[in-house]
């Protein structure tokens, strides 16, 4: 049976045991270190620890539980992506950072979805906010690309989508791709990749103009 791996969601069974993540207490430094090294156990513990903060905020500001979940996940992604940058330094508590990012994302979403909502920006009341505007606008820029890329990939269809992902994401060699897709040789695979790429680029950049 031909099985081609996509993603290994959890590296070790030990790490995906929720009980362990729940029991251990991490310091902020340990959290950041764990995120930097993409440790699933730490990610789970962090996720669990701060969801309540964001949930409460979103629920109190005319959001639903599901929206809170989504905003929180985006927030964790912003934090995670930052920890992957070598120059990143956090000069406040993680909780403050998460709260600040989540709040900003949520206010943006409220403003986007409706002209009626215009929340007064008074949540500085407890002095627990930090300036995350550059991080959030960086995230928004990438998000715009992401939506367009997702659409373009759907429009691209198979086998092009898989071929492009195998090459650019999984870094398979042309020989491996050629074998997997049954092309006669690596040059043929290269030509196919070129055609697929051109098509994807057309989809991606054409939609940019709109």
């Amino acid at each position, binding site marked *: *049976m*031909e*099985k*081609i*791996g*996509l*993603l*290994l*969601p*959890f590296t*070790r*069974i030990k790490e*995906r*045991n*929720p*009980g362990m*993540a*729940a029991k251990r207490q991490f310091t902020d430094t340990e959290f950041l270190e764990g995120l930097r090294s993409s440790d*699933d156990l730490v*990610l*789970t513990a962090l*996720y*669990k620890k701060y*969801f*309540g903060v964001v*949930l409460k905020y979103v*629920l109190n500001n005319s959001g639903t*539980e*599901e929206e809170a*979940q989504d905003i929180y*996940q985006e927030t*964790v*992604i912003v934090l*995670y992506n930052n920890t992957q940058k070598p120059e990143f330094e956090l000069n406040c508590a993680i909780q403050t950072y998460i709260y600040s990012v989540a709040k900003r994302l949520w206010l943006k979403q409220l403003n986007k979805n409706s002209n009626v909502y215009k929340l007064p920006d008074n949540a500085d009341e407890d002095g627990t906010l930090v300036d995350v505007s550059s991080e959030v606008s960086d995230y928004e820029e*990438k998000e715009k*690309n*992401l939506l*367009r*890329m*997702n659409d373009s*990939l*759907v429009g691209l*269809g*198979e086998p092009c989508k898989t071929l*492009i*992902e195998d*090459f*650019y*994401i999984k*870094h398979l060699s042309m020989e*491996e791709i050629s074998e997997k897709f049954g092309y006669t040789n690596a040059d043929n695979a*290269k030509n196919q990749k*070129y055609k697929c*790429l051109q098509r994807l*680029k057309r989809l*991606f*950049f054409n939609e940019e103009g709109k």
Partner: protein
Amino acid sequence: MRNVDLFDDYLFGRLNSEDKKQFENRLREDAEFKAEFNKHKGFVDALNYTSAKNTLKAKLKSIHQSQFGSSNIRHINENKTFYQKYIKPTGMAATVAVLAVITTVAVLSGGGYLIKKQNTDYTELKREVNQIKTSQDVITDVISKVAQKKRVYVPANFMGTGFAINSKGYCITSLHLVRGCDSIFIGNNVIDRAGARIVYTDTKLDVAILKIDSAFTPNWKDLPYSFKSSASDLGEKIFTLGYPAQDIVYGEGSISSSTKNGDTNMFQISIPVNPGNSGGPLMDEQGNIVGVVSGKKNNAEGTGFAAKAQYITDVLKNIEDEDLKKELTLSKRNNIKGLKRSEQIKKISPYVFNVYVYKGN
């Protein structure tokens, strides 16, 4: 050599030092070349970001499900409040534990005849994975597959079968298989492996509907089979596909009783089913889904039970949440009607999956 191929070789560090130098020189001198390169690099970055973000988001969703439970599980007559779900998880766990104790006591004591009868007569067909055996298999797998760069996954705690219900990425399986799980993955030789979460359950019919993670959902066109919304007759010839073993297994027989010991939600079938068959499709000769395999009779070989598709159709039609109801519309077109059985199976099997269920200790 095309510029794009050159760019990729440079980005992936596949140029030798001399070519690399030459390339960088050209970047400095040729503004047009540089602009083209930057555009390509921006595009590749966007592609990488997209893939990494989709993966991370899926992972966070699965973490959420494991830590807080699935917020999308909707029980028919039960709307969990925020309070019940997030503030009182221990209380709920305790209730479950108490119920489990009561049931056990009832089963063990002579007084609980009814419960005892049902429990001893009937086996749910989820496949509990033999840890030692599987880890051995995995080890040998790892050894034999290292050369081929194949993925090897952590063995699941339970395994069963599931199948697609429409082309929007929803599939159905047995509730007893996925109940209380941390995470669910599905896979077959088309999809390999994809995360899934529970979106709907029905206890009486022992079915759960899963949404396959959209990051992995293949581009399904119309499904080859449809769901039968009318009753099926006693004696009707039927067949099933499932994963009681590593590879898909076919079984055939007929509907042998229209109830399961009086329970009209299920019928009895004369197909030898085994652990792992749970959640598999039960189809009639035309390739209509007539049921979902659920369990078997303990003291009689070759006797199984399946939830009736007729009732599954009814239950889904009566979902109150309009959005969810629309999402869960069942496949209505059947284009395998006149085909030979082997041809039918070929068409159906891409939509039948192994369901891997992980449960924490």
